[in-house]
């Protein structure tokens, strides 16, 4: 059996589907892994979007019975969980995977094998979670899974939640470490920290957040798992347990998580504003500093989700004021972006439209964030549609718009095609209008007395019009998303191959092919300053200077092991879930574990030294 599969550098010929599939199953190349992240994330985004549409249909009119109460709770739980863990984060990880190595001049990430393991854990974790739909009901305790509702929830829904997130979370943690080491150790010559593009910087800081935030979730999930599956008493009040521990652990993870969602797109927007204004980013240093400050403060504010828990006024106000402080660094970023455009030559194509639409949308979301952070006012906002409005303004108006912006901007680099501009504009306008229609009105719904997670709202409570408008808006958003999908398929079938540098870019990724070869550059470029490509365009010959003469390139070997390991964990996950019903499932539990451990053993026993692409081969591929 040959486990190591060498990636051939043969130019893309027509290959059979099986070969393509095998290629992706065994790949350790950062760009292909990015493809997997993006496609996986897009799949789950559509799934989560369909769930959102179900929510909005149910809330179209008062006392609707489109879905049952139990099912509604499953839908909102899966909507939140899917969107955050399986849609937004993976797509962001995909963008980071594709672009960050290209921005620092690395050939791949530091641990390609772990990278592959991470993506497969995400995909199989996501599938595991969604299997619950088919086997006895999805989790129904909210994406926050507050105990004791989650520990006492009947059926296996919450078990799927625990195991699915445990797998996906482990994958994310690996990616975080991987990106950190890559950025620290694998920058091209001359790429000092203060010359790194802002997207790389935000990747770096996001990774730190991942590293320190996810373990808290891991522990929380373990406790939940032990309570549900092995009779532990962490959240069992009768045995001295305490349900608030879960809330703390969840939010110690959960709040940094929302910055994990937003910081990468802040980075992407910085690149986009700068490129399409033809200006360097305004206040580069303060942008980095602000990002760090957001991350730092982000760890000290988690309890603002718990103002009504009864922590007492001292804790409440400390967390409240700490939270408000985040307005300052975020404001710095907003105004720096505005200043970047100021005096520039602003080109309004679809990538830039997303960025421009983001500014008012996210500002509203951030400002309502400050409003919910004022603790005594949050007694009113908390757990109402005001909070729903707040976080959809930050997440959809920030993260999702950022994802659309980043995808539009980097589509040529990642997929080798430029997206169609007309379709792009249609997507933007329908989505943008639909978004504000859906969520703006929800601020008022919340204050008018509509709590969140309500299966029905009652007649004659003044909530009808608002909900109707909101639901219509959601469908407009759906139109936007569908047009985007059409766009992607259209350019894939019909579009021309993209140029290396279609946007007159400024950063290193635009110096290599679209899409790049798996070794990224024949010769690692030498970096001479910030916005290094722009520098060469204005002060050099428009091309990067190679840092060394042409020589053999060392690349890692592909491997099927990450996939096998993930499958093992997947099987073990099922074993954990069902061993409470039937002890025979222990076979799956231990069997799955054995598969994974065996794969791990093979991995560590093998000498896997990678392979070389020789000078001659490289020369053969003349430009």
């Amino acid at each position, binding site marked *: 059996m040959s486990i190591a599969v060498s990636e051939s550098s043969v130019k893309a010929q027509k290959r059979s589907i099986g070969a393509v599939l095998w290629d992706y199953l065994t790949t350790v190349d950062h760009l292909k892994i990015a493809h997997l992240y993006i496609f996986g994330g897009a799949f789950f985004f559509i799934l989560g979007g369909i769930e959102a549409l179900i929510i909005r249909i149910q809330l179209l009119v008062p006392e609707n019975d489109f879905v049952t109460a*139990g099912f*509604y709770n499953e839908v909102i739980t899966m909507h939140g969980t899917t969107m955050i863990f399986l849609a937004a984060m993976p797509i962001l990880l995909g963008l980071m995977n594709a672009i960050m190595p290209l921005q620092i001049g690395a050939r791949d990430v530091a641990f390609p094998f772990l990278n592959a393991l991470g993506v497969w854990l995400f995909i199989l974790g996501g599938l595991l979670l969604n299997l619950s739909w088919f086997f006895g009901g999805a989790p129904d*305790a909210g994406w926050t899974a*507050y105990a004791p509702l989650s520990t*006492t929830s009947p059926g296996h829904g919450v078990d799927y939640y625990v195991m699915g997130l445990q797998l996906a979370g482990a994958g994310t943690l690996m990616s975080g470490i991987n990106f950190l080491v890559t950025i620290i150790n694998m920058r091209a010559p001359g790429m000092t920290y203060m010359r790194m593009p802002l997207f790389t910087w935000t990747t770096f800081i996001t990774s730190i957040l991942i590293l320190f935030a996810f373990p808290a979730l891991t522990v929380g999930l373990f406790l939940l798992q032990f309570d549900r599956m092995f009779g532990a008493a962490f959240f069992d*009040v009768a045995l001295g*347990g305490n*349900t*608030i521990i879960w809330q703390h652990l969840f939010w110690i993870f959960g709040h940094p998580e929302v910055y994990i969602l937003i910081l990468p797109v802040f980075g992407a927007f910085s690149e986009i504003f700068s490129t399409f*204004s*033809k*200006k360097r980013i*305004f*206040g580069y*240093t*303060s942008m980095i500093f602000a990002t760090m400050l957001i991350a730092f403060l982000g760890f000290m504010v988690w309890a603002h989700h718990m103002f*009504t*828990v009864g922590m007492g*006024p001292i804790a*409440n*106000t400390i967390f*409240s*004021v700490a939270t*408000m402080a985040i307005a*300052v660094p975020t*404001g710095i970023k907003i*105004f720096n972006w*505005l*200043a970047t*455009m*100021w005096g520039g*030559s*602003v080109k309004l194509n679809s990538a830039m439209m997303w960025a421009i639409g983001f500014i008012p949308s996210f*500002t509203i979301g951030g*400002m309502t964030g*400050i*409003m919910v952070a*004022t*603790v*005594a*006012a949050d*007694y*009113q906002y*908390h*757990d*109402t549609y005001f909070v729903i409005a707040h976080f959809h303004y930050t997440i959809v108006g920030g993260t999702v718009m950022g994802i659309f912006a980043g995808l539009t901007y980097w589509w040529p680099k990642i997929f080798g095609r430029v997206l169609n501009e007309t379709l792009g504009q249609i997507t933007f306008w329908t989505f943008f209008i639909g978004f504000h229609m859906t969520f703006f009105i929800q601020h*008022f719904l919340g*204050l*008018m*007395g509509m*709590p*969140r*997670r*309500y*299966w*029905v709202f*009652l007649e004659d*409570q*003044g*909530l009808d019009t608002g909900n109707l408008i909101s639901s219509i808006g959601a469908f407009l958003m759906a139109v936007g998303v569908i047009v985007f999908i059409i766009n992607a398929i259209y350019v894939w079938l019909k579009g021309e191959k993209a140029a290396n540098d279609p946007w007159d870019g400024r950063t290193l990724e635009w110096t290599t092919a679209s899409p790049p070869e798996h070794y990224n550059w024949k010769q690692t470029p030498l970096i001479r300053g910030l916005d290094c490509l722009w520098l060469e365009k204005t002060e050099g010959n428009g091309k990067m200077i190679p840092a060394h003469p042409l020589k053999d390139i060392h690349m890692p070997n592909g491997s099927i092991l990450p996939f096998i390991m993930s499958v093992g964990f997947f099987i073990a996950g099922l074993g954990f879930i069902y061993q409470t019903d039937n002890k025979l499932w222990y076979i799956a539990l231990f069997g799955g574990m054995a598969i994974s451990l065996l794969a791990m053993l093979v991995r560590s026993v093998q000498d896997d030294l990678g392979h070389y692409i020789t000078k001659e081969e490289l020369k053969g591929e003349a430009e």
Partner: protein
Amino acid sequence: MKGWMGKIKALALMSFMAVLLTGCGKENLTALVPKGYGAEESMKLIILTTVIMGGVFLVVIVVLAYVLIRFRRKKGQENYIPKQVEGSKTLETIWTIIPIILVIIMAVPTTLISFDLADASDSKDHINIDVTGNQYWWHFNYQDEDIQTSQDLYIPVGEKVYLNMISSDVIHSFWVPSISGKMDVNPENTNTMYIEAYEEGVYWGKCAELCGPSHSLMDFKVIVVSKEEYEQWVADMKNYDPEKDEPESAVAKEGKDLFEENNCMACHAIGSSPVEVGPNLTNFGNRTKIAGFKEPTKENLVDWLKDPEEIKPGNLMTGKYPQLNDDEAEKIAEYLMQLKVTDVTPESVNN
């Protein structure tokens, strides 16, 4: 705190134009028309922050619009290379300092109000009520008076009332938007909050923490009556003796027997008995709603008795008692509907 309130009230009016267009929601439910102390204090902060946010947003949007109009790339400018500005110490300092100041302006009243709302030092001098959250109904135990009720909470107008809240199962959250902000009802510790209503009336209360399928139906009412009426109510409730109370009509009598036969008493108390597996039904005839949200008509009650699951999915009464036929249900309903202990009812509010 009155000073800054006055000055910004005018501005606040403007920012609430949008709200007014759609209405402020239903009176006695909306948080936008506060009728109690907590809601009013929260509203002060809501207004203050909304005004500040309006200002900040205006600045951002004006700058953005200006940039888009002024610096948009026009035909023939494709090759124009703008000046590559690194940044500006002055500007960056300005937009660091101003938000800091704004945050401080918000932080101070936030702190004051939060401490004020959490100050329970005078709880001894006021009415204390134990609140228990259950899937999916509320129970109220008037500590000092030895009175138990469910679903409808009677309080006197203009008086501080302390609520000591605990849950018997999962986490709930007690929220009467017009009167006060919410507080979680946890299973392991008692949370205390106080409410004070300014006007008589029947106010909607909602459960605000996901607690299962019927979370959205876990409504309750706060009935604010005048002080005299409240005292009357307390006296009536206290003096009520379920033993002595015999229904007048024959149907209701039969209903009472059926109520006992079907073992409803195992879960439902009538009178101040401590049974609280299900709602206390002492003054059921005065309820504003059945099961928290259904109009108190006989048909609805019969429907409830025959198939509570249909009305409140996941409720804990379903399947715990013998199936009732139409006739039995009618009779029990008749009995329950005439359980009126006092003349102080939701209707008597404002009389």
